[in-house]
């Protein structure tokens, strides 16, 4: 007779499923302004506490408080708000486009707009982003042509990527935006290599790597961290923890107790955990991390705590796996609303200007969409000849033969 009970293993469950009340009581939210701001050259061990708290700047009254609130230019905030409104308008229109059957696929970033847009605002031209698929704000907060993004989504004759990529997997080298892979997490280690190259050449550019909470389980996440730990290149690791990896909650993504930011500690990489729906906090922490990397103090990892309001993609139905009201119950609010209230409280913005901006961006997206549609939808106008180009720099004989057989 054994002294032991039969063993069991543990499959984590979220706090709520469809039909349940949303429950975020497990999410400990500290007071805005309560997190300290460390010195730019601090040792990773000195800021372990910042991996378990949530750095917040805006309080419930929309005021910017605490050490991270200092020295943020009003223009950055106003531009950031506009870019967030523009991004949301873009997402809405592209979702409609997919529902109309004009494209096969789309992914919104609703509720997460502040992260990419504020981070981009903290970068300098030439700093390279290695994004995943929900950072459209990196492009939409710049002068990258919106119409080109839509052409890519439609895979039409003006698609910069010639119909070879799934919609939304953009590539925009001119705007420091690395080509997006559909294979998760692979870009994390690319960013490390790019940052090492910048250092090898004695440059001053930094790389920013992007990953979702679910993809932190991928090998390349760990490859990137171990390489960054060893070589200490100028790279900022961004983990966008939006609570859901398609239908899997963060407990499946990598355990339910330790924060994603804490993972950096084993690699001796400084890490911070931040309210990703607080534009001021995202900007301030991004600026700190980027400056630290650019000053030669090595990598930084940031966990952005946010919530994926929208479905994972147009092929997903979140009502099948999470409480219906969960997205509206997210206790850290909506990034656009919060920044809007902050700027109104400071007299820099108004309800009227907000409504006007929404209307202007709706119209801009509508016009750009119409123009893009004139070049074809759902692959129309693209050429089968393009299929054979750019596999290699020069067309090798076997591909030339295959193309000739196709008659193009």
């Amino acid at each position, binding site marked *: 007779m054994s002294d032991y009970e039969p063993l069991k293993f543990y499959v984590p469950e979220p706090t709520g499923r469809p039909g349940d009340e949303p429950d975020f009581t497990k999410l400990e939210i500290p007071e805005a302004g309560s997190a300290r701001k460390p010195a730019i050259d601090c040792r990773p061990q000195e800021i372990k506490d910042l991996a378990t708290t949530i750095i917040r700047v805006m309080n419930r009254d929309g005021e910017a408080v605490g050490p991270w609130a200092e020295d943020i230019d009003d223009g950055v905030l106003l531009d950031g708000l506009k870019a967030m409104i523009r991004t949301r308008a873009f997402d809405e229109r592209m979702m409609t486009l997919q529902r109309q059957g004009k494209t096969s696929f789309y992914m919104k970033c609703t509720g997460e707009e502040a992260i990419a847009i504020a981070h981009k605002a903290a970068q300098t031209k030439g700093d390279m982003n290695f994004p995943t698929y929900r950072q459209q704000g990196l492009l939409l907060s710049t002068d990258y042509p919106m119409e080109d993004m839509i052409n890519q989504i439609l895979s039409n004759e003006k698609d910069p*990527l010639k119909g*070879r990529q799934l919609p939304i997997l953009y*590539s925009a*080298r001119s705007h420091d935006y*690395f080509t997006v892979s559909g294979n998760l997490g692979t870009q994390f*280690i*690319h960013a490390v*290599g790019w940052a*090492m190259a910048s250092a090898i*050449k004695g440059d001053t550019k930094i790389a920013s790597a992007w990953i979702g909470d679910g993809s932190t389980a991928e090998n390349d996440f760990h490859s990137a961290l171990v390489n960054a730990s060893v070589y200490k290149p100028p790279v900022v690791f961004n983990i966008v923890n939006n609570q859901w990896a398609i239908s899997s909650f963060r407990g499946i993504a990598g355990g339910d107790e330790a924060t994603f930011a804490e993972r950096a500690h084993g690699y001796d990489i400084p890490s911070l955990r931040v309210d990703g729906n607080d534009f001021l906090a995202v900007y301030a922490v991004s600026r700190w991390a980027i400056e630290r990397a650019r000053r030669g103090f090595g990598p930084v990892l940031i966990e952005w705590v946010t919530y994926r309001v929208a479905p994972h993609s147009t092929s997903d139905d979140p009502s099948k796996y999470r409480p219906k009201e969960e997205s509206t119950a997210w206790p850290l609010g909506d990034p656009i609303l919060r920044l809007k209230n902050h700027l109104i409280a400071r007299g820099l913005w108004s309800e009227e200007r907000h409504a006007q901006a929404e209307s202007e961006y709706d119209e801009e997206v509508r016009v750009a969409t119409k123009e893009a549609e004139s070049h074809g939808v759902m692959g129309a106008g693209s050429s089968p000849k393009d299929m054979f180009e750019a596999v290699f720099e020069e067309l090798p004989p076997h591909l030339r033969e295959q193309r000739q057989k196709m008659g193009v």
Partner: protein
Amino acid sequence: MPQMSMIEAIRDAMDVKMAEDDNVVVFGEDVGYFGGVFRCTHGLQDKYGKNRVFDSPINESGIVGAAIGMAAYGLRPCVEIQFADYIYPAYDQIVSEAARLRYRSGEQFTAPITIRTPVGGGIFGGQTHSQSPESLFTHVAGVKSVIPSNPYDAKGLLIAAMEDPDPVIVFEPKRLYNGPFDGHHDRPASNWSKHPLGDVPEGHYTVEIGKASTFREGKAVTILTYGTMVYVAEAAVKETGIDAEIIDLRSLLPLDVDAIVESVKKTGRCMVLHEATQTSGFGAELAAQVQERCFYHLESPVVRVAGYDTPYPHAQEWDYFPGPARVGRELKAMMEAV
């Protein structure tokens, strides 16, 4: 002209390119201070510094992934995967990322990286140190695969790979690192210095990727092969007296189809020979190409001689490895076929 082993020729290729181009960096497991477990990078760190030649963590995906990022910046990384058997953790980075960056980015980003990796058996490496995974890569669009059989080609192909605008995998037959191989494991191996193919010019030269070479001219049958098996074929020809033409493919993708067709049309018979497992091996592609293009010139079916469809066994390595006797038997049978 200097005499070099294949190891020395490979090292010389990296030396030449590092001296010419500041953007060339070399890294991988143990390649820096120690100079690589096969010593291919010996001395390069001393000469070019730790910023350009350095050790990496035991992390093949990280090695190739970092190389891709460096290439996106504008560098020219030449990385070593210590054994081809360990390339699988890097497989996704090679086939999904390096191979497709140019394609998927509308040519905004490219991955001109070189991946060197020792390949093949005959060294008592067993199932984790003797594999020949080349066909896993020739199936992938966007990456080139080459495999030299001698020091001259090794240096020329490696320099060509490092100058190529696309990712290239250089499979280095480790059985040939120190000398040619007569196909018999129980005979002493000769040294490259006693072999004309050990003559390696100093300085810069290239061997064109995508061009095969005729290792031995013959009229009776064509043997399509590469790497170590070139010498097994040569031994079989000597021992059987069959006047076979041996084509050393050198480059598997792109493949020199013209050279293959020309030879098979001349001889009317074709054997494909490699040490990788037979099923879905590169020999299947060669046999299909010959069937499609030379069918009416063939006097007997295309024959495949390859490793068996088992993992590479340690104790039975010399039964697994196609040797001259096996090749000879198959050659004789082919010649007897109507």
